[in-house]
């Protein structure tokens, strides 16, 4: 379903601004937090002891209220009004089965009633009827393609039905458009999204999501397990990890959590213990290196070197080592690693950048410049490529080109 980013953002911020919806509207008062969480999700979250019970549906609904204004602006028929009112009353009384039945009848009369589809989706979600909930959200999203809260809820349902690729698409889109900006929504959405990102081999992106919990000092064994899996680059979902494998991932996750929470000394101690207990386990040093890189690339270099000592064929290790050496300005050292990484993965941007800059800074200006320009062809806003070109042009006396590249660097968005 093609969704224009600016449309989604506009919708989201509009409803965010509306907060709880019009005073006295049924949208703002009709949903009680306690009834919003399906049992299954409750059980997931009961394992996150320091996470507040998620008020996801309640909050999403609150932000959604304005977006649920009737699509056509026509007055509903009397029988429709009656059904809608009775459905709301049943919902208020937590008579879920009756509410579902009444909403379904109302939708038969008026299939373009967005609010009805939302409640159908929501109540089925609460009742662990995930395929049916997805159907309700599908109808709603068809009517209102920019309904970010519904996309988020559909993503959570898809997670439960093991439609992981769809779930990842929906949750990622929802987060990109602000669904996780509300801290209480953030926990449930980010936790599921992080698991899916790791499952999709996007470990760094997964750790970015997990970092939210460390920053907020939200901790639990489930989170540690997820962080450990993403850190050691395992695509298995936490729920599928065999019991005998859990301690290693859990331990790695605790170490990673500490570093993500900027408890550097504790994190370092936990990682050192991990290294001594599991000296030949691949990706442990790589994990620590990844975590150290934003703080001190030179420390990351040491970890990537250690990783290659454990697993010499670790291509990610070679690429990260090359990139880190390039970032620290150790171009001559970076060069052989970058050549290795580039030979293994010629389309890997990190390898292109590391090799391009290292070549240029060590004298092979043309080949280096070509590689950096190759990066820019696919990613015109790549800061590292522009930084590299600025340096090369400066060193070769191309003043105007250097000034231009520097100006580009300074204007690039974060």
């Amino acid at each position, binding site marked *: 379903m093609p969704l224009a980013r600016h449309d989604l953002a506009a919708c989201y911020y509009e409803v965010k601004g509306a907060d709880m919806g019009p005073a006295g509207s049924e949208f703002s008062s009709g949903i009680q937090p306690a009834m919003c969480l399906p049992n299954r999700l409750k059980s997931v979250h009961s394992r996150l002891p320091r996470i507040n019970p998620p008020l996801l549906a309640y909050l999403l609904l609150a932000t959604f209220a304005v977006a649920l204004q009737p699509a056509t602006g026509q007055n509903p028929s009397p029988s429709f009004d009656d059904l809608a009112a009775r459905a709301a009353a049943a919902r208020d009384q937590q008579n879920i089965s009756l509410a579902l039945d009444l909403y379904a009848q109302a939708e038969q009369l008026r299939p373009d009633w967005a609010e009805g589809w939302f409640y159908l989706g929501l109540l089925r979600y609460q009742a662990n009827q995930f395929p049916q909930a997805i159907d309700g959200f599908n109808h709603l999203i068809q009517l209102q393609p920019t309904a970010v809260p519904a996309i988020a809820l559909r993503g959570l349902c898809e997670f439960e039905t093991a439609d992981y690729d769809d779930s990842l698409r929906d949750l990622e889109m929802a987060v990109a458009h602000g669904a996780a900006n509300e801290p209480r929504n953030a926990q449930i959405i980010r936790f599921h999204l992080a698991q899916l990102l790791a499952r999709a081999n996007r470990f760094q992106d997964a750790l970015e999501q997990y970092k939210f919990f460390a920053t907020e000092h939200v901790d639990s064994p489930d989170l540690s397990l997820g962080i450990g899996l993403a850190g050691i680059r395992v695509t298995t979902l936490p729920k599928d990890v065999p019991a005998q494998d859990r301690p290693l991932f859990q331990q790695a996750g605790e170490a990673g959590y500490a570093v993500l929470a*900027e408890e*550097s*000394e504790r994190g*370092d101690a936990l990682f050192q213990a991990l290294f001594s207990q599991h000296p030949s386990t691949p990706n442990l040093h790589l994990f620590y290196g990844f975590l*150290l890189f934003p*703080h*001190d690339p*030179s*420390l990351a270099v*040491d970890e990537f070197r250690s990783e290659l000592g454990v697993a010499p064929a670790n291509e990610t290790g070679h690429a990260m080592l090359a990139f880190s050496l390039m*970032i620290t*300005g150790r171009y001559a050292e970076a060069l052989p690693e970058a050549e290795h990484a580039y030979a293994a993965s010629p389309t890997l941007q990190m390898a292109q950048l590391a090799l391009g800059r290292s070549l240029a800074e060590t004298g092979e200006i043309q080949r280096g410049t070509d590689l950096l320009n190759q990066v820019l062809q696919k990613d015109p806003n790549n*800061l590292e490529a522009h*930084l590299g070109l*600025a*340096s090369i042009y*400066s*060193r*070769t*006396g191309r*003043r105007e080109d*250097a*000034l231009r590249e*520097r100006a580009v*660097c*300074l204007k690039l968005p*974060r």
Partner: protein
Amino acid sequence: MRSVNARSASSSLVSLSVAFCLVVLAGSCDTGQAQSAAAPVTCATCHVGVAAHYAVAPMRHAMEPAGADPQLTAHPELRANVGKYSYRIQTSDGRSTYTVTDGVNTVTLPIRWIFGQHSQTFVLEKDGHLYESLVSFYPRDNTLAVTPGDERIVPATLTQAMGRELSLWESRSCFNCHATGVVPGHQLDPEKLAPGLDCQRCHAGAQQHMADASRNSFATLPPSLRRLDSEEISAFCGQCHRTWDTVVRNHWKGPAFVRFQPYRLGNSKCFIGNDKRISCLACHDPHQQLSHDQAYYDSKCLACHRAPHPASATSSPPASPAYKPCPVAKSNCVSCHMPKVDLPGGHQQFTDHQIRIVRPGEPYPD
């Protein structure tokens, strides 16, 4: 570390005594004698002049050990109030203590490491953790005030009011630029570091060279830094003074970052990497004291901004081209083109190394 190692005009007694020792050592070499068995070989044994000058250079004193700091000795009692906390630094008998109190509870710690020769920030140790003092000493105003970069910290506890806990990587980074002996891949042990920057901090391999030279072998010379081009020099000095790349990668903006000179110089329209007339080393000799005489720098500017020699007007372009001379003045160039910028907090000024035509009322250029 956010402390600043701009040099004080006055040299310290410690520095002078070190210089004296170095000169004495060097003198024995200059007399043509073989190295005495009793006299250890140092860099100064051969490099007499540079070692003597460097002994009082700012980088040599980027960190002072406890009890060796002339500024604190000259100000034995410093006090400040920041928020609800009161700070006091007392120095006597070569010991300095740092005290913070909220009126009910008090923490007093010895000052273990003093970062900077001019404005100074203190590194404290408490319960095995290192902290950057929340207040620093500013000699311009002879006062204690909030450490640069910590202005937004609102301490919730006395320990937080004492200082900002340093992460492992911050500690390494701080000591690596203010001391000598941080070993990559090894745990940081500040006790084992030499305060300030020794020769080998910049001249990698100096120890080996010294050992070999004492046996009349000169096969292992440290890599020459003279051969670096201006970009490479900026990158080299920028390891501590911050490179253009580092600042841009971190999206650092505003006057607080005027103190990162290689970045500011790189912003200058006249900076170009293949011209050695515009580089850190074109104007500054890191082995020497910093000159605060504005006229001293005129020759550096005029090396480029000079009237073309009449003879060159019709010949091929010279290797060192001339650029447009200043229509206003021929002296004290930096007074106009490298203005002083106040750092946030108002207790320090830095020379902006973004060389430019400064127009009245224009904002600080990022």
